[in-house]
Protein backbone atom coordinates (compact mmCIF):
# COMPACT_ATOMS: atom_id res chain seq x y z
CA UNK A 1 0.00 0.00 0.00
CA UNK A 2 1.09 3.59 -0.47
CA UNK A 3 2.37 5.47 2.56
CA UNK A 4 -0.40 6.21 5.05
CA UNK A 5 0.13 7.74 8.45
CA UNK A 6 -2.59 7.53 11.05
CA UNK A 7 -2.39 9.88 14.03
CA UNK A 8 -4.45 8.99 17.09
CA UNK A 9 -5.18 12.22 18.93
CA UNK A 10 -5.97 15.66 17.49
CA UNK A 11 -4.43 17.75 20.25
CA UNK A 12 -1.24 19.76 20.22
CA UNK A 13 1.08 16.78 19.66
CA UNK A 14 -1.04 15.15 16.97
CA UNK A 15 -1.47 18.35 14.98
CA UNK A 16 2.21 19.21 15.29
CA UNK A 17 3.21 15.77 14.04
CA UNK A 18 0.85 16.01 11.07
CA UNK A 19 2.15 19.42 10.04
CA UNK A 20 5.78 18.46 10.57
CA UNK A 21 5.26 15.44 8.30
CA UNK A 22 4.10 17.74 5.50
CA UNK A 23 6.86 20.25 6.17
CA UNK A 24 9.29 17.36 6.01
CA UNK A 25 8.06 16.39 2.56
CA UNK A 26 5.80 13.44 3.37
CA UNK A 27 3.47 12.98 0.39
CA UNK A 28 1.30 10.06 1.53
CA UNK A 29 -2.03 10.25 3.29
CA UNK A 30 -2.33 11.64 6.82
CA UNK A 31 -5.41 10.91 8.92
CA UNK A 32 -5.84 12.76 12.20
CA UNK A 33 -8.30 11.07 14.56
CA UNK A 34 -9.89 13.08 17.37
CA UNK A 35 -12.24 11.67 20.02
CA UNK A 36 -13.93 15.00 20.70
CA UNK A 37 -16.59 16.82 18.73
CA UNK A 38 -14.19 19.65 17.91
CA UNK A 39 -11.28 20.08 15.60
CA UNK A 40 -7.95 21.01 17.14
CA UNK A 41 -8.28 23.72 19.78
CA UNK A 42 -6.05 25.47 22.28
CA UNK A 43 -6.16 23.98 25.77
CA UNK A 44 -4.07 26.51 27.72
CA UNK A 45 -6.73 29.26 27.70
CA UNK A 46 -9.40 26.89 29.06
CA UNK A 47 -8.43 27.44 32.69
CA UNK A 48 -7.62 31.10 32.10
CA UNK A 49 -9.06 33.61 29.63
CA UNK A 50 -11.71 31.27 28.24
CA UNK A 51 -13.05 30.27 31.66
CA UNK A 52 -12.99 33.92 32.68
CA UNK A 53 -15.35 34.65 29.78
CA UNK A 54 -12.79 36.81 27.98
CA UNK A 55 -12.77 34.66 24.82
CA UNK A 56 -15.49 33.09 22.74
CA UNK A 57 -15.22 29.47 21.70
CA UNK A 58 -14.31 30.25 18.10
CA UNK A 59 -11.21 31.97 19.43
CA UNK A 60 -9.98 28.64 20.79
CA UNK A 61 -9.54 27.19 17.29
CA UNK A 62 -5.96 25.96 16.89
CA UNK A 63 -6.14 25.09 13.19
CA UNK A 64 -9.07 25.91 10.98
CA UNK A 65 -10.40 22.93 9.00
CA UNK A 66 -9.37 24.59 5.73
CA UNK A 67 -5.83 25.01 7.04
CA UNK A 68 -5.65 21.26 7.60
CA UNK A 69 -7.37 20.52 4.30
CA UNK A 70 -4.87 22.66 2.41
CA UNK A 71 -2.13 20.46 3.85
CA UNK A 72 -4.10 17.35 2.89
CA UNK A 73 -4.49 16.35 6.53
CA UNK A 74 -7.74 14.47 6.88
CA UNK A 75 -9.36 15.31 10.21
CA UNK A 76 -11.93 12.92 11.65
CA UNK A 77 -13.65 14.00 14.87
CA UNK A 78 -15.86 12.08 17.30
CA UNK A 79 -13.99 8.88 16.66
CA UNK A 80 -12.17 6.60 19.08
CA UNK A 81 -9.75 3.81 18.40
CA UNK A 82 -10.50 0.50 20.05
CA UNK A 83 -7.43 -1.50 19.07
CA UNK A 84 -4.12 -1.50 17.24
CA UNK A 85 -3.16 -4.60 15.26
CA UNK A 86 0.60 -4.25 14.89
CA UNK A 87 1.01 -7.32 12.75
CA UNK A 88 -1.59 -6.34 10.16
CA UNK A 89 -0.79 -2.62 10.68
CA UNK A 90 -4.41 -1.73 11.19
CA UNK A 91 -6.24 0.39 13.74
CA UNK A 92 -9.79 -0.58 14.57
CA UNK A 93 -12.21 2.27 15.21
CA UNK A 94 -15.07 2.26 17.66
CA UNK A 95 -17.59 1.97 14.81
CA UNK A 96 -15.98 -1.32 13.79
CA UNK A 97 -14.26 0.03 10.70
CA UNK A 98 -10.52 -0.15 10.37
CA UNK A 99 -7.73 1.95 8.92
CA UNK A 100 -4.46 0.58 7.56
CA UNK A 101 -1.23 2.40 8.29
CA UNK A 102 2.37 2.36 7.25
CA UNK A 103 3.24 4.61 10.17
CA UNK A 104 1.26 5.20 13.36
CA UNK A 105 1.43 8.13 15.77
CA UNK A 106 0.12 7.85 19.30
CA UNK A 107 -0.77 11.31 20.58
CA UNK A 108 -3.48 10.19 22.95
CA UNK A 109 -2.88 12.72 25.71
CA UNK A 110 -3.73 12.25 29.35
CA UNK A 111 -6.73 11.99 31.64
CA UNK A 112 -7.15 13.86 34.93
CA UNK A 113 -6.93 11.69 38.01
CA UNK A 114 -10.22 11.29 39.81
CA UNK A 115 -10.78 12.01 43.45
CA UNK A 116 -10.67 8.61 45.16
CA UNK A 117 -13.14 9.65 47.83
CA UNK A 118 -16.84 9.22 48.59
CA UNK A 119 -18.79 11.72 46.51
CA UNK A 120 -15.94 12.16 44.05
CA UNK A 121 -18.33 11.62 41.16
CA UNK A 122 -21.08 13.96 42.42
CA UNK A 123 -22.74 16.55 40.19
CA UNK A 124 -20.76 19.75 40.38
CA UNK A 125 -17.40 18.01 40.82
CA UNK A 126 -15.20 18.48 37.77
CA UNK A 127 -11.74 17.98 36.44
CA UNK A 128 -10.50 20.34 33.73
CA UNK A 129 -8.93 18.87 30.65
CA UNK A 130 -11.21 19.34 27.65
CA UNK A 131 -13.32 22.08 26.20
CA UNK A 132 -16.42 20.24 27.41
CA UNK A 133 -15.00 20.12 30.94
CA UNK A 134 -14.37 23.84 30.80
CA UNK A 135 -17.89 24.49 29.52
CA UNK A 136 -19.38 22.47 32.35
CA UNK A 137 -17.28 24.35 34.92
CA UNK A 138 -18.23 27.71 33.40
CA UNK A 139 -21.92 26.79 33.57
CA UNK A 140 -21.61 25.71 37.17
CA UNK A 141 -19.68 28.88 38.02
CA UNK A 142 -22.60 30.89 36.65
CA UNK A 143 -24.92 29.01 39.00
CA UNK A 144 -22.54 29.69 41.89
CA UNK A 145 -22.50 33.40 41.06
CA UNK A 146 -26.30 33.48 40.94
CA UNK A 147 -26.80 31.53 44.16
CA UNK A 148 -23.71 32.92 45.89
CA UNK A 149 -22.20 29.51 46.42
CA UNK A 150 -18.49 29.09 47.10
CA UNK A 151 -15.98 27.32 44.87
CA UNK A 152 -13.56 24.76 46.25
CA UNK A 153 -10.45 23.83 44.31
CA UNK A 154 -8.81 20.57 45.31
CA UNK A 155 -5.13 20.61 44.42
CA UNK A 156 -2.75 23.57 44.50
CA UNK A 157 -1.03 22.79 41.19
CA UNK A 158 -1.17 24.82 38.00
CA UNK A 159 -4.68 23.89 36.90
CA UNK A 160 -6.14 24.32 40.36
CA UNK A 161 -4.49 27.66 40.95
CA UNK A 162 -5.40 29.00 37.52
CA UNK A 163 -9.03 28.03 38.12
CA UNK A 164 -8.90 29.61 41.59
CA UNK A 165 -7.54 32.85 40.13
CA UNK A 166 -10.27 32.82 37.50
CA UNK A 167 -12.97 32.16 40.11
CA UNK A 168 -11.70 35.09 42.18
CA UNK A 169 -11.73 37.27 39.06
CA UNK A 170 -15.43 36.49 38.85
CA UNK A 171 -15.87 37.47 42.48
CA UNK A 172 -16.59 33.95 43.72
CA UNK A 173 -15.68 32.91 47.23
CA UNK A 174 -12.80 30.53 46.58
CA UNK A 175 -10.85 28.08 48.73
CA UNK A 176 -7.91 25.95 47.60
CA UNK A 177 -7.33 22.69 49.47
CA UNK A 178 -3.80 21.35 49.00
CA UNK A 179 -2.63 18.10 50.56
CA UNK A 180 1.04 19.12 50.60
CA UNK A 181 2.55 21.70 52.97
CA UNK A 182 3.02 24.17 50.12
CA UNK A 183 1.62 25.12 46.72
CA UNK A 184 3.19 23.73 43.54
CA UNK A 185 5.55 21.82 45.80
CA UNK A 186 6.78 19.45 43.11
CA UNK A 187 7.88 22.19 40.75
CA UNK A 188 8.60 25.43 42.58
CA UNK A 189 11.26 26.43 45.07
CA UNK A 190 9.82 26.98 48.57
CA UNK A 191 10.36 30.73 48.35
CA UNK A 192 8.17 30.85 45.24
CA UNK A 193 5.48 28.60 46.74
CA UNK A 194 5.17 31.08 49.58
CA UNK A 195 5.07 33.98 47.16
CA UNK A 196 2.21 32.32 45.23
CA UNK A 197 0.35 31.60 48.46
CA UNK A 198 0.56 35.30 49.29
CA UNK A 199 -0.53 36.24 45.78
CA UNK A 200 -3.68 34.13 46.07
CA UNK A 201 -4.46 35.31 49.59
CA UNK A 202 -3.96 38.93 48.55
CA UNK A 203 -6.62 38.38 45.89
CA UNK A 204 -9.01 37.00 48.47
CA UNK A 205 -8.65 33.26 47.90
CA UNK A 206 -8.45 31.09 51.02
CA UNK A 207 -5.74 28.45 51.12
CA UNK A 208 -5.67 25.34 53.26
CA UNK A 209 -2.33 23.54 53.18
CA UNK A 210 -1.76 20.04 54.59
CA UNK A 211 -5.44 19.56 53.80
CA UNK A 212 -6.90 16.14 54.67
CA UNK A 213 -10.12 15.62 52.77
CA UNK A 214 -12.53 12.89 53.87
CA UNK A 215 -15.42 13.15 51.45
CA UNK A 216 -17.49 15.26 49.10
CA UNK A 217 -20.85 16.04 50.69
CA UNK A 218 -23.92 15.94 48.48
CA UNK A 219 -27.64 16.57 48.62
CA UNK A 220 -30.36 14.06 47.76
CA UNK A 221 -29.86 14.74 44.04
CA UNK A 222 -26.16 13.81 44.35
CA UNK A 223 -25.16 17.44 43.78
CA UNK A 224 -22.15 18.69 45.67
CA UNK A 225 -22.86 20.78 48.78
CA UNK A 226 -19.45 20.83 50.38
CA UNK A 227 -16.14 19.20 51.16
CA UNK A 228 -15.74 17.41 54.49
CA UNK A 229 -12.29 17.31 56.02
CA UNK A 230 -10.79 14.51 58.13
CA UNK A 231 -11.28 16.63 61.26
CA UNK A 232 -14.98 16.92 60.51
CA UNK A 233 -14.95 20.52 59.30
CA UNK A 234 -17.08 21.10 56.23
CA UNK A 235 -16.37 23.73 53.58
CA UNK A 236 -19.60 24.50 51.75
CA UNK A 237 -19.32 24.39 47.97
CA UNK A 238 -21.48 24.79 44.89
CA UNK A 239 -18.62 23.72 42.63
CA UNK A 240 -15.57 21.59 43.22
CA UNK A 241 -12.73 21.55 40.70
CA UNK A 242 -10.24 18.73 41.13
CA UNK A 243 -6.71 19.29 39.86
CA UNK A 244 -4.64 16.47 41.32
CA UNK A 245 -2.65 15.46 38.30
CA UNK A 246 -3.13 13.40 35.19
CA UNK A 247 -2.40 9.89 33.99
CA UNK A 248 -1.02 9.18 30.51
CA UNK A 249 -3.47 7.60 28.11
CA UNK A 250 -1.38 4.52 27.36
CA UNK A 251 -4.08 1.84 27.49
CA UNK A 252 -4.22 1.34 23.72
CA UNK A 253 -0.45 1.04 23.58
CA UNK A 254 -0.41 -1.37 26.50
CA UNK A 255 -3.06 -3.52 24.88
CA UNK A 256 -0.99 -3.55 21.70
CA UNK A 257 2.01 -4.79 23.65
CA UNK A 258 4.14 -1.63 23.42
CA UNK A 259 6.50 -0.88 26.28
CA UNK A 260 4.72 1.38 28.77
CA UNK A 261 5.65 2.62 32.22
CA UNK A 262 3.09 5.17 33.40
CA UNK A 263 3.19 6.41 29.82
CA UNK A 264 4.22 5.10 26.41
CA UNK A 265 7.97 4.71 26.61
CA UNK A 266 9.74 6.66 23.85
CA UNK A 267 13.33 7.64 23.12
CA UNK A 268 14.43 11.20 22.42
CA UNK A 269 13.38 10.74 18.78
CA UNK A 270 9.86 9.60 19.62
CA UNK A 271 10.33 5.90 18.75
CA UNK A 272 8.25 3.40 20.70
CA UNK A 273 9.23 -0.25 20.99
CA UNK A 274 7.65 -0.80 17.53
CA UNK A 275 9.62 0.79 14.65
CA UNK A 276 6.40 1.66 12.78
CA UNK A 277 4.90 3.47 15.77
CA UNK A 278 5.94 6.78 17.32
CA UNK A 279 4.39 8.70 20.20
CA UNK A 280 4.34 12.32 21.31
CA UNK A 281 2.95 14.56 24.03
CA UNK A 282 1.30 13.91 27.38
CA UNK A 283 0.87 10.19 26.70
CA UNK A 284 4.61 9.54 26.65
CA UNK A 285 7.34 8.75 29.15
CA UNK A 286 10.70 9.67 27.66
CA UNK A 287 13.71 7.48 28.40
CA UNK A 288 16.67 9.67 29.37
CA UNK A 289 20.32 8.75 28.78
CA UNK A 290 20.67 7.65 32.42
CA UNK A 291 17.80 5.20 31.95
CA UNK A 292 15.24 7.11 34.00
CA UNK A 293 11.87 8.10 32.58
CA UNK A 294 10.66 11.68 32.25
CA UNK A 295 7.03 12.64 31.92
CA UNK A 296 6.32 16.20 30.90
CA UNK A 297 2.91 17.72 30.38
CA UNK A 298 3.31 20.91 28.44
CA UNK A 299 2.62 22.50 25.10
CA UNK A 300 6.32 22.78 24.37
CA UNK A 301 6.86 19.09 25.09
CA UNK A 302 3.96 18.17 22.81
CA UNK A 303 5.18 20.32 19.94
CA UNK A 304 8.83 19.33 20.20
CA UNK A 305 8.03 15.63 20.54
CA UNK A 306 5.63 15.98 17.61
CA UNK A 307 8.45 17.30 15.44
CA UNK A 308 10.72 14.47 16.57
CA UNK A 309 8.04 11.86 15.94
CA UNK A 310 7.40 13.16 12.43
CA UNK A 311 11.12 13.08 11.67
CA UNK A 312 11.36 9.52 12.98
CA UNK A 313 8.60 8.41 10.60
CA UNK A 314 10.54 10.06 7.76
CA UNK A 315 13.57 8.00 8.70
CA UNK A 316 15.44 10.91 10.28
CA UNK A 317 16.83 11.37 13.76
CA UNK A 318 15.66 14.57 15.38
CA UNK A 319 16.16 14.03 19.09
CA UNK A 320 14.24 16.33 21.41
CA UNK A 321 16.87 17.71 23.75
CA UNK A 322 15.79 21.33 24.11
CA UNK A 323 15.40 22.79 27.59
CA UNK A 324 11.86 22.14 28.80
CA UNK A 325 9.76 25.21 29.49
CA UNK A 326 6.31 25.89 30.91
CA UNK A 327 4.14 28.83 31.77
CA UNK A 328 1.16 29.66 33.94
CA UNK A 329 -1.03 32.77 34.11
CA UNK A 330 -2.57 33.63 37.47
CA UNK A 331 -4.15 37.04 38.10
CA UNK A 332 -1.83 39.51 36.35
CA UNK A 333 1.27 37.37 36.88
CA UNK A 334 2.90 35.30 34.18
CA UNK A 335 5.13 32.52 35.49
CA UNK A 336 7.60 31.18 32.94
CA UNK A 337 9.74 28.22 33.93
CA UNK A 338 12.82 26.98 32.08
CA UNK A 339 14.60 23.74 32.91
CA UNK A 340 13.77 21.10 35.50
CA UNK A 341 14.49 21.96 39.10
CA UNK A 342 14.43 18.46 40.63
CA UNK A 343 17.47 17.94 42.82
CA UNK A 344 18.18 21.63 43.38
CA UNK A 345 19.93 22.42 46.65
CA UNK A 346 20.65 26.14 46.28
CA UNK A 347 18.55 29.05 45.10
CA UNK A 348 19.15 32.66 44.18
CA UNK A 349 16.50 35.32 43.70
CA UNK A 350 17.09 37.99 41.08
CA UNK A 351 14.86 41.03 40.99
CA UNK A 352 12.22 42.37 43.33
CA UNK A 353 9.79 39.82 44.80
CA UNK A 354 7.78 42.54 46.54
CA UNK A 355 7.31 44.39 43.25
CA UNK A 356 6.24 41.15 41.53
CA UNK A 357 8.91 40.96 38.82
CA UNK A 358 11.74 38.55 39.60
CA UNK A 359 13.27 35.16 38.89
CA UNK A 360 14.29 32.25 41.08
CA UNK A 361 17.41 30.41 39.92
CA UNK A 362 17.71 26.76 40.95
CA UNK A 363 21.17 25.27 41.38
CA UNK A 364 22.62 21.90 42.21
CA UNK A 365 25.92 22.91 43.70
CA UNK A 366 27.02 25.69 41.37
CA UNK A 367 25.29 24.22 38.30
CA UNK A 368 22.19 26.01 37.05
CA UNK A 369 19.24 23.59 36.70
CA UNK A 370 16.23 25.80 36.15
CA UNK A 371 14.89 29.34 36.33
CA UNK A 372 11.36 30.35 37.33
CA UNK A 373 10.49 33.87 36.24
CA UNK A 374 7.49 35.92 37.33
CA UNK A 375 6.63 38.81 35.02
CA UNK A 376 10.22 38.69 33.82
CA UNK A 377 10.13 37.29 30.28
CA UNK A 378 13.58 38.59 29.53
CA UNK A 379 15.07 36.50 32.36
CA UNK A 380 13.11 33.53 31.07
CA UNK A 381 14.36 33.78 27.51
CA UNK A 382 17.93 34.26 28.66
CA UNK A 383 17.56 31.28 31.00
CA UNK A 384 16.54 29.08 28.07
CA UNK A 385 19.63 30.20 26.19
CA UNK A 386 21.92 29.62 29.18
CA UNK A 387 20.48 26.17 29.84
CA UNK A 388 20.56 25.20 26.15
CA UNK A 389 24.21 26.23 26.00
CA UNK A 390 25.07 24.53 29.29
CA UNK A 391 26.35 27.85 30.64
CA UNK A 392 25.87 28.46 34.33
CA UNK A 393 26.23 31.64 36.34
CA UNK A 394 27.37 31.18 39.92
CA UNK A 395 24.77 31.40 42.66
CA UNK A 396 26.19 34.77 43.63
CA UNK A 397 26.10 36.07 40.05
CA UNK A 398 22.50 34.96 39.58
CA UNK A 399 21.38 36.95 42.60
CA UNK A 400 23.38 40.07 41.71
CA UNK A 401 21.53 42.50 39.42
CA UNK A 402 24.85 44.20 38.83
CA UNK A 403 26.04 41.15 36.86
CA UNK A 404 24.82 41.08 33.27
CA UNK A 405 24.04 37.36 32.82
CA UNK A 406 23.74 37.66 29.03
CA UNK A 407 27.46 38.42 29.04
CA UNK A 408 28.16 34.84 30.09
CA UNK A 409 26.86 33.54 26.78
CA UNK A 410 29.36 35.25 24.50
CA UNK A 411 32.40 33.97 26.38
Amino acid sequence: MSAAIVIIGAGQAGVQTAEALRTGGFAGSITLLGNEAYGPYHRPPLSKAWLAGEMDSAQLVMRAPEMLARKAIELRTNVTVSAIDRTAKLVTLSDGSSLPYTGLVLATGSTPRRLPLPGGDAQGVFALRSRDDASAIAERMAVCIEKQLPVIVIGGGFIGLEVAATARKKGLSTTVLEAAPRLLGRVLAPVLSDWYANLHRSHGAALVLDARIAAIETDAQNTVTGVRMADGQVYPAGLVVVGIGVAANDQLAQAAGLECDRGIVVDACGHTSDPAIVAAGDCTARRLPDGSLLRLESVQNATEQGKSAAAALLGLEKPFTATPWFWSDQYDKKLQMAGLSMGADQWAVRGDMAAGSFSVYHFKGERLLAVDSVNASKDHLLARKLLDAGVSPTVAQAGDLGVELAGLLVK
Partner: protein
Amino acid sequence: MANITYIEASGQSTTVSLNDGWSLMQGATANGIDGILGECGGSCACATCHCYVDEARLGDLPAASEGELDMLENVAAERRPNSRLACQIKASAALEGLIIHLPATQE
Protein backbone atom coordinates in the same frame (compact mmCIF):
# COMPACT_ATOMS: atom_id res chain seq x y z
CA MET B 1 -15.00 45.19 13.69
CA ALA B 2 -11.96 45.55 11.48
CA ASN B 3 -10.87 44.13 8.14
CA ILE B 4 -7.32 42.85 8.51
CA THR B 5 -5.19 41.72 5.58
CA TYR B 6 -2.62 39.01 6.19
CA ILE B 7 0.11 38.61 3.60
CA GLU B 8 1.99 35.36 3.95
CA ALA B 9 5.65 34.98 3.05
CA SER B 10 4.53 33.20 -0.14
CA GLY B 11 2.67 36.35 -1.19
CA GLN B 12 -0.74 34.81 -0.48
CA SER B 13 -3.02 37.59 0.73
CA THR B 14 -6.17 37.04 2.80
CA THR B 15 -8.50 39.64 4.24
CA VAL B 16 -10.51 38.70 7.31
CA SER B 17 -13.18 40.62 9.15
CA LEU B 18 -12.53 40.40 12.88
CA ASN B 19 -14.90 41.19 15.70
CA ASP B 20 -13.68 43.66 18.31
CA GLY B 21 -11.59 41.96 20.93
CA TRP B 22 -10.35 39.16 18.71
CA SER B 23 -6.59 39.07 18.52
CA LEU B 24 -4.93 39.06 15.12
CA MET B 25 -3.51 35.64 16.04
CA GLN B 26 -6.99 34.24 16.65
CA GLY B 27 -8.16 35.76 13.38
CA ALA B 28 -5.40 33.92 11.54
CA THR B 29 -5.78 30.52 13.18
CA ALA B 30 -9.57 30.53 13.00
CA ASN B 31 -9.54 31.51 9.34
CA GLY B 32 -7.04 29.05 7.99
CA ILE B 33 -4.17 31.45 7.42
CA ASP B 34 -0.80 29.73 7.43
CA GLY B 35 2.16 31.55 8.81
CA ILE B 36 0.89 32.07 12.34
CA LEU B 37 1.11 29.14 14.74
CA GLY B 38 0.09 30.58 18.11
CA GLU B 39 1.27 27.52 20.00
CA CYS B 40 0.45 28.92 23.44
CA GLY B 41 -3.07 29.89 22.48
CA GLY B 42 -2.49 33.60 22.80
CA SER B 43 -0.81 33.95 26.17
CA CYS B 44 2.26 35.89 25.00
CA ALA B 45 4.31 32.87 26.01
CA CYS B 46 5.65 31.27 22.83
CA ALA B 47 6.42 33.94 20.19
CA THR B 48 5.03 31.87 17.28
CA CYS B 49 2.60 34.56 16.09
CA HIS B 50 5.27 37.03 15.05
CA CYS B 51 4.14 39.51 12.38
CA TYR B 52 5.30 42.69 10.69
CA VAL B 53 2.82 45.51 10.93
CA ASP B 54 2.32 48.07 8.16
CA GLU B 55 4.80 50.73 9.27
CA ALA B 56 2.47 53.62 8.46
CA ARG B 57 -0.10 52.20 10.86
CA LEU B 58 2.19 51.46 13.82
CA GLY B 59 0.82 54.51 15.61
CA ASP B 60 -2.73 53.10 15.47
CA LEU B 61 -1.70 50.15 17.62
CA PRO B 62 -1.40 50.16 21.36
CA ALA B 63 2.26 50.04 22.36
CA ALA B 64 3.82 46.66 23.02
CA SER B 65 4.04 45.67 26.67
CA GLU B 66 7.39 44.94 28.24
CA GLY B 67 6.49 41.24 28.18
CA GLU B 68 5.78 41.37 24.45
CA LEU B 69 9.02 43.25 23.72
CA ASP B 70 10.91 40.62 25.71
CA MET B 71 9.26 37.79 23.77
CA LEU B 72 10.06 39.52 20.47
CA GLU B 73 13.73 39.10 21.32
CA ASN B 74 13.22 35.37 20.82
CA VAL B 75 11.29 35.22 17.54
CA ALA B 76 12.53 32.77 14.91
CA ALA B 77 12.50 35.13 11.93
CA GLU B 78 14.33 38.44 11.71
CA ARG B 79 13.09 40.97 14.23
CA ARG B 80 12.37 44.37 12.69
CA PRO B 81 11.25 47.72 14.11
CA ASN B 82 7.67 46.85 13.09
CA SER B 83 7.72 43.38 14.63
CA ARG B 84 4.80 42.54 16.91
CA LEU B 85 3.12 39.46 18.34
CA ALA B 86 -0.27 39.01 16.71
CA CYS B 87 -1.77 37.63 19.93
CA GLN B 88 -1.22 40.98 21.63
CA ILE B 89 -3.04 43.08 19.02
CA LYS B 90 -6.81 43.19 19.49
CA ALA B 91 -9.13 44.11 16.65
CA SER B 92 -11.04 47.41 16.88
CA ALA B 93 -12.32 50.03 14.45
CA ALA B 94 -8.99 51.83 14.77
CA LEU B 95 -7.33 48.94 12.93
CA GLU B 96 -9.65 48.96 9.90
CA GLY B 97 -7.70 48.08 6.76
CA LEU B 98 -4.53 47.10 8.61
CA ILE B 99 -2.07 45.02 6.60
CA ILE B 100 0.32 42.66 8.33
CA HIS B 101 3.06 40.59 6.76
CA LEU B 102 3.91 37.15 8.10
CA PRO B 103 7.45 35.83 8.30
CA ALA B 104 8.57 32.69 6.49
CA THR B 105 9.09 30.84 9.76
CA GLN B 106 7.82 30.92 13.32
CA GLU B 107 10.02 28.21 14.73
